[in-house]
């Protein structure tokens, strides 16, 4: 089966790259082994929150020069990173993902445990804070749904109270939810959202919240609204009548899943082919060192051919990278990786410390081209969290790397001259 571009990995990076190419008229396929990390989304994409030396970042674009030379942003170059970071909100908007935020100034998101973390672009479900210290209100009514365990109201109240917000915690009891409560282990965000999304149910919830309100100026709710229809959270807030703040829950993430579904639908609507639940097994190369085709479990002997291939297979969790006690490798192409020698240098025994293994991954001299035994593979691009050079968890840079390298690789594929630069 022949495509212009075959993308391995159906997460944020793979999907954005695929949509950009498909909409530019390229015939694309995405092979995805199961659902992606967007299902665990915090609701925000980060660009850069902290430099490797620990310095907090206010303006990510200005801070780029403080990154190591092997950081994906450094390899791609400041000019490109700034350009794509500025284009990204509009690009996401064109993919049906509504976001707020800007690249030149970090905003702040509230985590499920009430921490505050720097954010770049935030899904329209959430209202990012202007500063780390900003109070969410004078008095907050924190509302949970009775029986829902993935929303920790006490942690949230503690953290809001440290900022001087007076909090009161209440539970919402809806008869529509009672059916779900029969099965406590499945009282999960998506199951709640499915019930809430039904006609009349979220209105009933809003009505109950209005009645519980005393003198609070802010309502805090878990982000369990709008699994299919992203307008539900806003409508709910309007109905309640006071400022309503949604806080991300423990996974799965309702806004994240909606985002994933929208992105896949956008890709398929443009004509792209999405192969879910399939795993790429191997690659064949042409005599001149390009990738010729890949094989998958489901396709068997029918191979996927393409002019260009994009590896967006993610890091260890999604098996884009495999670690054995002795080595780390990339299982499809066996591309060059950067990682520390000696297993003792991979991790810190203290779980909470910075973990080196998170920065391991694909080495890409120009930020997006893969190499094998030091030789650049002209038609093989590598994007997203499989890239090496950044401790995304420590830096708060995973979202930005996924979005920006996806856009850069798509444009490199579309721009023949840039491609020719690497051809032999």
């Amino acid at each position, binding site marked *: 089966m022949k495509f212009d571009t075959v993308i391995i990995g159906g997460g944020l990076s793979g999907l954005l790259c695929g949509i950009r190419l498909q909409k530019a008229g390229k015939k694309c396929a995405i092979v995805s082994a199961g659902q992606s990390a967007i*299902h665990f989304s915090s609701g925000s994409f980060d660009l850069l929150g902290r430099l490797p030396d620990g310095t907090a970042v206010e303006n990510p674009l200005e801070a780029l020069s403080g990154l190591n030379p092997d950081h994906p942003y450094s390899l791609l170059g400041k000019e490109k990173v700034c350009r794509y970071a500025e284009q990204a909100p509009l690009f996401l908007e064109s993919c049906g993902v509504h976001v707020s935020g800007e690249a030149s100034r970090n905003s702040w998101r509230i985590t499920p445990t009430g921490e505050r973390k720097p954010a770049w672009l935030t899904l329209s479900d959430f209202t990012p804070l202007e500063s780390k210290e900003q109070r969410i209100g004078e008095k907050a009514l924190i509302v949970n749904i009775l029986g829902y365990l993935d929303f920790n109201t006490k942690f949230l109240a503690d953290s809001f109270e440290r900022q001087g917000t007076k909090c009161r915690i209440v539970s919402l009891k809806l008869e529509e939810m009672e059916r*779900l409560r029969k*099965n406590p282990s499945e009282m999960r965000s*998506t*199951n709640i959202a499915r019930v809430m999304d039904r006609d009349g149910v979220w209105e009933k919830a809003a009505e109950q919240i209005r009645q519980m309100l005393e003198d609070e100026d802010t309502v805090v709710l878990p982000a369990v609204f709008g699994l299919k229809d992203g307008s539900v959270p806003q409508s709910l807030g309007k109905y309640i009548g006071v400022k309503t703040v949604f806080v991300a829950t423990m996974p*799965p993430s309702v806004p994240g899943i909606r985002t994933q579904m929208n992105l896949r639908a956008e890709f398929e609507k443009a004509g792209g082919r999405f192969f*879910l*639940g399939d*795993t790429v097994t191997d690659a064949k190369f042409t005599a001149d060192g390009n990738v010729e085709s890949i094989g998958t479990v489901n396709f068997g002997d029918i191979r996927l051919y393409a002019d260009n291939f994009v590896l967006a297979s993610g890091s260890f969790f*999604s098996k884009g990278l495999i670690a054995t006690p002795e080595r780390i490798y990339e299982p499809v192409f066996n591309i060059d990786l950067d990682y520390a020698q000696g297993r003792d240098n991979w991790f810190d025994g203290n779980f909470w410390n910075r973990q080196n293994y998170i920065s391991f991954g694909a080495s890409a001299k120009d930020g997006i081209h893969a190499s094998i035994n030091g030789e650049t593979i002209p038609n093989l691009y590598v994007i997203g969290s499989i890239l090496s050079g950044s401790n995304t968890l420590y830096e708060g840079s995973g979202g930005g790397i996924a979005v920006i390298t996806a856009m850069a690789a798509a444009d490199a594929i579309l721009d023949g001259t840039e491609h020719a630069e690497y051809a032999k």
Partner: protein
Amino acid sequence: MNMQEKNISANNFEQCIKCTVCTVYCPVVPVNPLYPGPKQAGPDGERLRLKKGIFFDDTLKYCLNCKRCEVACPSGVRIGDIIQAARIKYNTKPPKLRDMMLASTDLMGSVATKVAPAVNMTLGLKPVKSVMDGLLGIDKHRDFPKYSSRTFEKWYRKNVKTFQDSFNHHVSFFHGCYANYNYPQLGKDLVSVMNALGYGVHLLDKEKCCGVALISNGMTDKARKNAAANLESIRKSVNERQMPVIGTSSTCSFTLRDEYPHLLGIGNDDVRDYIELATRFIYRLADEGKVRFVFKKDYKARIAYHTPCHMEKLGWGIFSAELLRMIPGVELTVLDSNCCGIAGTYGFKKENYQVSQAIGKPLFEQIAKLRPDFVACDCETCKWQIEMSTDYAVKNPISVLAEALDLVATSEANK
């Protein structure tokens, strides 16, 4: 350290990290609160069951075995297999009479075809439906698939067997119970299409029901016997006659390839790659330029393609869809990935009827909104469900090909 690497349990059980993504895509969870969901029924419950069998939970019967949890799992855990394997291992209750009847598709079929008109009429009568509903627990809303008075095998032997050897290439056809007892036209269409492409079509020495309904209804021993018999015939076809085995039912093909080793513990590694759906087989030939299609000039159809759950799991919907797209007069829409709700015999059971229809609702609504000329789908039970629940006919992609091809001209082109 080595132990950690080698400690791989059945169905990738230990790979589960409790991310709950499977539960998001389970079609049963939103509509049946009695079902604990794939994570709990699968890997979570398995931890307990491994400790003691008494932790087996009877609600596992609500699992459709659609495998959508497996398609969604980011960690490659065979959640559906864990659930079905637990049912096989721990469920000690003998199957009910009704379940035995529903599961014995080939026994029921071979009896019913002999007196088909009477059976079809009787099964369609309201009083009979009420009795089956009340006594047996087969839901009265269900229409039974009609039985044919002559099986596909009989038709094959009488009409086309003699000239199949005259072709240059050959395949064996696993027709399944549906094409044999209920709808021989599908088998006839397969023969017409393959013959036109230059392939002789042969029956297996012995074909038994693939056993999917036996597995889901707790008749594992019978399923194992069928599996052994089928694999013996398939091995003869593949090894002695060099004939790959193709089918027209996604679930039969899936069962022969994956449920035999995963659920019944019967290995098929040596022949698994030679068992596939006809649409995939034909797509490969077309992709490699080995066959030519000549389509009727005036063929026009707006088709909505529904991907059956087991087709999602196989990842082969693309082949049926791409084949349909090759027909010049076809305007194809691939429907959103939703379970139709019937899941073989599941939806026939009175206790599942409401759940079954609730699961299928989004699919039925999408079809109604789209107003296609007809729906295309590779699964017979999806066909019954969609035909009962919408105003649209459902055709197997092979039948669509048979309709759209100029068979005479195609035969000439492939000589």
